[in-house]
């Protein structure tokens, strides 16, 4: 798309969307958001990029093959699920670690659930880009 305005706008928006998508994913456990929403938002950033600057640039910006990202995401989510079994629990049992937890404050929670959500994010992100890039290139 040979539009200066769009290209420039995209430069800001894409980054904005990406940052914003992380934000949405991380807060997901307590407020609206989560892996899907994050992944979808992040993906739209690069979709916009692809529309504005073409898929070559978008792929270059992404560096990694989107389908690889997706598969890794699946792997991470799977690991997060199986990880629990290492503690003798059932699969997909959340394992929590509260950094700096005090009696009144849970501190900074770190959990397999979060990992799982990250996996979800990557899957959605990677899959949508796989699809959109391929289609952009075909059309």
């Amino acid at each position, binding site marked *: 798309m*040979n*539009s*200066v*305005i769009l*290209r*420039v*706008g995209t*430069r*800001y928006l894409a980054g904005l969307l990406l940052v914003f998508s992380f934000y949405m994913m991380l807060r997901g456990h307590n407020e609206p958001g989560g892996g899907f929403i994050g992944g979808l938002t992040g993906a739209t950033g690069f979709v916009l990029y692809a529309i504005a600057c073409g898929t070559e640039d978008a792929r270059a910006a992404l560096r990694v093959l989107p389908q690889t990202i997706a598969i890794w995401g699946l792997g991470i989510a799977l690991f997060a699920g199986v990880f629990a079994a290492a503690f003798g629990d059932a699969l997909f049992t959340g394992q929590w670690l509260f950094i700096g937890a005090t009696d009144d404050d849970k501190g900074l929670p770190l959990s397999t659930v979060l990992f799982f959500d990250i996996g979800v994010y990557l899957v959605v992100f990677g899959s949508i880009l796989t699809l959109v890039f391929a289609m952009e290139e075909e059309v």
Partner: protein
Amino acid sequence: MNTFGLNIILAIAWVAFTGSVSLTGLITGFAIGYGALWLIQPLIGTSTYFSRVTAWIKLIIMFHYELILSSLEVAMDVLTPRHRARPAVIEMPLDVKTDTGILLVTNLISLTPGTLSLDVSEDRKTLLVHAMFADDHEAILHKLKNGMERWVIEAVEGAT
């Protein structure tokens, strides 16, 4: 704009101190950081940063004023039975250079009275503007260049 970067770092530091990871924390951190930097200005040497910020604030205010104005103007035309609009497409030469500048100019023009920026020529020299009330092209052009574009250039490119 390394001063700006410094300011950001200060904001983050503030967040770290207070431990409240929220936009509020970040903003307050930024504000306090800005104040701090302004105080220690002599140490970090003169920078356009501070004037730039004032320019930004001015731009934002002006812009909102324009936005309301434009909306009212269009609203009038919408509500009145006969159209007063005299649409025309005007080519406006661009002085602003940077991408950000161009983006801002076009966007702001789109959001201000009677004009809608359609396209920027490939050479980034001219901007196609659709004017709703194009009785006098020159007037419109003059208004745009001394209004929006100047403010933007001041804010973005720091020229005075």
